[in-house]
């Protein structure tokens, strides 16, 4: 198939970008979207031009590196997949495809289609982990967890941190991402000791990074490649509210079950 691409090209965060039109020729429907871009890039390199820069790594939907806003949708038109899992058979011969980077103040463009998502790293570093020393290994059945809860925590943990939720949101809010990271630990016993301080620290960092607020529109849930649910946001709001009702040290006493 032959396609026309309108690709956002931008040298770095300090200069203005613009759309540039390219032809993508002899594209096989079996190619992934990124492999199609590889083909275009090889031809650009041979002409001595700079290849189109985009983020990618695992190319199988698990690492969260690929992004791309394709024809108005983060990760393209299909549901529940990442750009690297999108195949060219989704498009038809002769189609024009518009490719943009994630657009959000907290995700400055690095180059072309790649954006700097280190704001997500800093939110994670603010509390998205369990710092309690786990000591010796214990048997898996020593802390029984009801299956429904284990499954829910697992669903939250499938967030790959790609940032599609931010890109989809008219407010550029990161609530879906942050809430998934908060919830996966809040639901499990290992997450309890730091539950209340974690949610406060992560939300504070999210605000400091300049993400917008949530207005319950739900675009994030609709576009999330991992189908993370908005109920995570409710759970996070609930925890945040509970934590703010107490002073932090009281929260800790409370959490340790006095």
């Amino acid at each position, binding site marked *: 198939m032959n396609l026309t691409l309108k690709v956002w090209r931008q*040298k*770095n965060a300090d200069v203005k970008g613009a759309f540039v039109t390219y032809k993508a020729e002899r594209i*096989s429907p*079996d*190619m*992934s979207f*990124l*492999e199609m871009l*590889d*083909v275009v890039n*090889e031809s650009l*390199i*041979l002409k*001595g*031009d*700079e*290849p189109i*820069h985009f983020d*990618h*790594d*695992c*190319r*199988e*939907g698990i*690492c969260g590196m690929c992004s791309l806003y394709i024809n108005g949708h983060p990760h393209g038109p299909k549901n529940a*997949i990442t750009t690297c*899992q999108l*195949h060219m*058979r989704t498009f038809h011969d002769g189609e024009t495809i518009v490719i943009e980077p994630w657009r959000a103040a907290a995700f400055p463009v*690095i*180059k072309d289609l*790649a954006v700097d998502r*280190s704001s997500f*790293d800093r939110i994670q*570093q603010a509390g998205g982990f369990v710092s309690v020393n786990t000591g010796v290994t214990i048997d898996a059945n020593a802390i029984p967890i009801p299956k429904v809860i284990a499954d829910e925590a697992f669903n939250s943990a499938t967030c790959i941190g790609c940032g599609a939720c931010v890109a989809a949101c008219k407010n550029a809010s990161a609530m879906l991402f942050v809430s998934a990271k908060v919830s996966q630990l809040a639901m499990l016993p290992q997450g309890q000791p730091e539950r209340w301080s974690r949610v406060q620290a992560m939300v504070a960092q999210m605000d400091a990074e300049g993400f917008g607020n949530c207005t319950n529109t739900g675009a994030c849930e609709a576009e999330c490649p991992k189908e993370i649910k908005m109920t995570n946001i409710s759970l996070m709001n609930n925890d945040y509210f509970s934590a703010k009702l107490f002073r932090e040290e009281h929260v800790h006493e409370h959490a340790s079950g006095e």
Partner: protein
Amino acid sequence: MYTRSEMLDVVTVDGHAKGIVTRNLITGEIDTHTGHAVLLATGGYGNVFYLSTNAIGSNVTAAWRAHKRGAFFANPCYTQIHPTCIPVTGDHQSKLTLMSESLRNDGRVWAPKTVEIAEQLRKGTIKADQVKEDDRDYFLERKYPSFGNLVPRDVASRNAKEMVDEGRGVGGSGFAVFLDFADAIHRLGKDAVAAKYGNLFDMYYQITDEDPYKQPMRIYPAVHYTMGGLWVDYNLSTNVPGLYALGECNFSDHGANRLGASALMQGLADGYFVIPYTLGDYLAQIGPKPVDGKHPAFEQTKQDVIARINKLLALKGTKTVNEYHRDLGHIMWEYCGMARTEEGLTKAKGLIQALRADFWKNALVVGENEEVNPALEKAGRVADFLELGELMVDDALMRKESCGGHFRLESQTPEGEALRDDEHFAFVAAWEYKGDNQPEVLNKEALDFEFVHLTQRSYK
């Protein structure tokens, strides 16, 4: 955290590792970092084959730079080829996707009994479910009645290759066998199968546009893991004091044949149970002295890195770096893949040397250092793969026995299984770098088995 920075060299001072040199992948800045010790956890080198299940960014550069600074590289030819990957569709393919091992619990692997039926399947004139039960060869169940579809990865992979070599491969390219869930769906019901494997079936469908609930999956082996890597002792220390290697980038734990799920176990063991203790021991020995970042070794190593980058950027030939990578991958897969021979490996050595020489003449590297430049990043990595590939071939040539993932056609049992030669090869091959284009020197670490004695594997 230093994201988007790549380590390009190790700094050694008086034979001890004291820091690293990195390139900032956004600004191109070359930085030096000092430390009392250097820990590498930089993963495996499966991408030397171009196509593998590894992430695109996986590469050997960190380990290879350490090797060139004196660290031994052990058992480089030991590669794990995983039997259940989605087959290649064409030259555009950039990576291979693994279908989990767990699928072999319920899926049955088969190929058509005759070349004629295989041909019809390849042309698409018949579909898999139209092949009669009697015309199917469940080759793993037939050859290994007690293990069946659950034989280890190397055995399953080699047998799939055998089917393809006999002309019984399926799929458009002929490089595939079937993994069939019809029986499991019949026995357990579609819902039960979906509950177990639904996400994998979805993934398969996304990639191939075929519904594995209706037609069997097509699978073929792909490079998945590299058991070889930097030589380390029980403390995870390389032979360069202060330089440690953890996880897939070292050679330890898996011998010639990694078992499923054990790589993540190794990550835990190395990172959680071993290094916190053994590193402390080293630090106690060297004492609490500050590292002198002004030592000339830092500036010298930095200049070496800059010189190499400039050499790469000066390449203004006609062939993209990606093409060299793909060519190298073809050579490695053909001659140093699932079945290896003296003749093939000797040929591969010549081909790699020629390809490497050509790379340094005719490769095309666009752009500059002081910017985001993936072409430059890739060029450095491929240049290292072009050196590593030759060492892998040397290692495979030296090891005349078959052992785990390393299968030498000259060394088989009468039944066509891997035949070890413990009298001559019960050792770890730790290769020592001696300078560019010089043959590496082989050091042997003997393997002594006190309690469990070596025997021939059998899955019959």
